């Protein structure tokens, strides 16, 4: 593999940076179980997500891509290594501070069970702000809602929305607090092609129109093609990167990895 990887830059976190990192990790490791059942999900990975870009993370099942995302997002505790969101070293934060960080500076889109079923779409969108006891910025909120074409769906319960609509509500929620970075974990995993495309277009336009940062785990080369950069993982290690991907290029690279 002749491709340069991001590890070159990430290995020297103290050095001045060509591009600002929205999030990065050094020596990130995650080990599950002990003895015979010991599984190394991440094997001392150095990685960064550049600001105002859509980065996709790909890899075969069990490559550690979801674990990477969860650890970077502060949802899961790494076994080893350090994670920064912007300049904040989150490995040191206690539960309270980590909660505040998630609330104020991160956005999440998950594959399934993304919305609180007892709240309306509008309430779900505002949830991070409501939890923080803050008022939504009305202008930003209407921009987001409009851009995601949710205006007529705001007062519906999640179970009255289609899968694609639900996921767009989730994207709106992830964007509502103008986060430093949005983590999306297989956001199209449960959707049909049409809905997938809608959701990906939303994420794309968040990056292009609003300079938001998105890190997305996916196993769908078509989805990865929406990204600016694709990172490839295998066996808990970062094994490649692909700038300006297309579905075909991604597929080829995946075949290489699995082959």
């Amino acid at each position: 593999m002749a491709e340069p990887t991001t590890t070159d830059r990430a290995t020297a976190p103290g050095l001045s940076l060509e591009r600002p990192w929205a999030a990065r990790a050094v020596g990130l490791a995650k080990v599950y179980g002990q003895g015979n059942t010991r599984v190394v999900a991440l094997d001392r990975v150095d990685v960064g997500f550049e600001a105002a870009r859509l980065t996709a993370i790909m890899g075969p099942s069990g490559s550690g891509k979801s674990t990477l995302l969860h650890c970077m997002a502060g949802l899961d505790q790494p076994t080893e290594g350090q994670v920064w969101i912007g300049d904040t070293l989150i490995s040191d934060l206690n539960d309270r501070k980590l909660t505040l960080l998630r609330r104020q500076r991160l956005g999440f889109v998950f594959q399934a069970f993304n919305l609180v079923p007892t709240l309306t779409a509008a309430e779900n969108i505002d949830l991070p702000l409501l939890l923080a006891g803050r008022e939504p910025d009305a202008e930003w909120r209407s921009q987001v809602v409009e851009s995601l074409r949710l205006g007529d769906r705001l007062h519906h319960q999640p179970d009255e929305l289609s899968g694609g609509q639900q996921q767009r509500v989730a994207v709106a929620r992830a964007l509502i607090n103008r986060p430093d970075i949005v983590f999306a974990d297989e956001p199209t995993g449960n959707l049909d092609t049409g809905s997938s495309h809608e959701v990906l277009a939303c994420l794309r336009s968040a990056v292009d129109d609003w300079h938001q940062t998105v890190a997305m785990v996916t196993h769908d080369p078509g989805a990865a093609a929406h990204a600016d950069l694709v990172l490839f993982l295998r066996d808990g290690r970062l094994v490649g990167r692909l700038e300006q991907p297309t579905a075909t290029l991604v597929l080829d690279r995946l075949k290489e990895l699995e082959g």
Partner: protein
Amino acid sequence: MGIVLRLSMRNLAASRLRVALTTFAVLLGVSFVVASFVLTDGLLDTFDTIIEEANAEVDAEVRARSDFDEVQFTARPIDEALVGVVRAVDGVAAAEPATQSMKIVPVRADGEPIRTTGAPILSFNWSDSPLDPLTLVEGQAPAGPGQFVIDQGTADREGLVVGGTYDVIGAAGREPFQLVGLSRFGDANSLGGAILVSYTLDELQRLDGSEGLIQWIAVGAEAGVEPDVLVERLEAALPDDVEAVTGEVVVQEGQDAFSGFIRIFGNILLGFALVAVFVSTFIIANTFNILLSQRVRQLGLLRALGASSRQVRASALVEALIVGLVASVLGLGFGVLLAFGLRAIMDALGFGLPAIDVVMSARTVVVAVAVGVGVTLAASLIPARRAASVPPVATLRSGYRFGAGEGARRTTFGLGLGVLGAVGMGVGLFGGIDETVLLLVCVAGGAVLVFVALSMLAPLFSSPSAAALGAPLEHLPGRRITGHMARGNAARNNVRTASTATGLMIGLALIAMATVVADSLKASVRAELRSTLTADLVVSQSFGGNFSSELVGELDAIPGLAQVAPLRFGVVRIDGTETGFTATDLTQLTEVFDIDVREGDPASVADPGHVIVTRDTATDRGLGVGDPLTVEFAATGVQTLTVGAIYTNDFILGDYVIDLSAWDANVDSRDDGMIVATLAPGAEIAATDAAVAALADTFPNLEFETRDEFRERFEGELDSLLVIINVFLGLAIVIALLGITNTMALSVLERTREIGLMRAVGMTRRQTRSLIRLEAGVVSLFGALLGVVVGLVFGWLAVVAIPESAIDRLSLPVAPLVWYVVAATAAGLVAASFPARRAARLDVLDAIAQG
């Protein structure tokens, strides 16, 4: 509205049915608490009014002076001639002699004496003066010999009509009287179920056997004379052993006497209510736990989106708070209805409770809300804590176990609580605490801790137990597979099985304990009767009242009876403490009772100067034969008696026995409380029976019983008491069953997909139903068995702790205990019917699509 509150409300709304069932469990407990307060307050209010109205015109009362707290056994009559003395006092407008008797019984037209279920038949002397609380509502007042008036309620119930002739049984036996009118007491038709009969004073005294004596004089003051002044003047004119008190004091004493009784009754109700509340705590905790565990992914999502663990906990607690508030408010309303229902039931059972008004005191509202909200919040603390510790990743990965990793901590904590509870109970039962409140706190608090500890330790063995108890299900004909799966399901979640079974465990433990104690008491009494009471015939008043001593003479005249010994029961003060004593013919005592004399000879000290005491008393007080014992009688004051003998068996007799001659010297009354008699050797049984039967006819108000009949009646009364206790404890069982319904409903919800799969592969609706029911049956059986085991231990402890004079042996009532377990298990099966039906109705495809 804050997001926390909004989430709580929506979550409650989303699981309405489960929440409703939980609310109902809290509501039942709260209602019972409210009912006990409302009923007590209402009765107090009613009786206060009755007594106030009855004494409205009384400015002062003249009566025998007594500083004894106990009144029934120490009351003394005064000389009727004092009425003249009182009337002559300056400022007295009216003075009415009053006496009352509980020894006179009117007989219905069919020859059956009038009976009550606990309240006495009170006979008064009639007077037209406004000082008399009775008013005539029909006919005339009794004006001469052979006339009487009865209260309207009794006349209606017993079919007595004005103008009719009915027998009245007095001191001299039956004689015909004419009913000349009907009366009412104040505004009430009845007085706590008592039957009120009036005669002229002379007739009443003759029937009572107290000619020339009265019990008190009601005094009305002339206008402008203050009651205090009147009392002072009366005191000056009266002899030293007679006192005058104001009408206010009389009202207060009357109210206190009633309120004491009503409060005890109220506290007993409250005790049962608290048991119900306690059981509902476990139901709430369990339900919240399951509800929250089913929301784990949502909780994780909230955490991922930036909800702090405090917010998550707050949201769970707010849910509990709302449930508690709703249950409390509903419980207040429901409790009032329950209070009226209870009153009506008790009235119907013959306790004769007057109608009550709703008295909703601030205390009732505060306690209802405090209990409802407090219990719900307390019960949800642990589930809320668990909810708060759900990590954000729980929303991403399946398989997060709610409350995981608590096992060891729970066990340690449970062991600690168990030890603490056992120590509390130990101190309470065996620590020799005299303070009743402290004792109750120790025992009840200890028991509560033990129950909580058991619920925490039960998960250690609930799964293997359920598997073992469910083993027979594997062999159910035609239901092998459902039996097999039900057994597996019951053993699947050890914590849930344990906490579902806990409610049932508590209810059954208490019932089993009550049954063991009652059975042991019965066995002890049976043994005592066999060993101590050697007499063949026992005469008593079924309600423990006294009767004329003329009966002794009549029994003595029956040739077949050898010894005939009357027993009289009184109260004296020894060392400042009022204590009961018995008087009898000491020359005959050892013939009718086997009292196991250790020292001295009772027959040789049958004189006014001696007392015989039990060995325990002698040891406690350091007394030996020949030692002096200072005793204070109500009538004659301090007397010094000499200990004449020491005996062991105190059954019926108590710790102190004096001779009838000593009684006559120190007590005014000549009435007997009981008569025991032995058959003469070689007596003709048939002739003796006939003679006794003839006497029983003349005195239908008395029980003439053989020793066995006496014992059976006693055991019958104990059995009725046990039934009442168990019915009240049954409420706790009902709540526990609600808990089973709730848990099973939640389990069905949780296993929707699983049930759908099984239906898809060919499980019929019937099989699905029996699967759910059988699982509930196994869990119930586990709870019931655990409860009975705990109840046996508690019962055994109680039997050991209760003084040997009351209970001296442990008796295990196997049949009722087995029956309780069977009934509880069956009830558990029934409780699961509703969730079972729901499970069976699930749409197969929908069910599989879920999850």
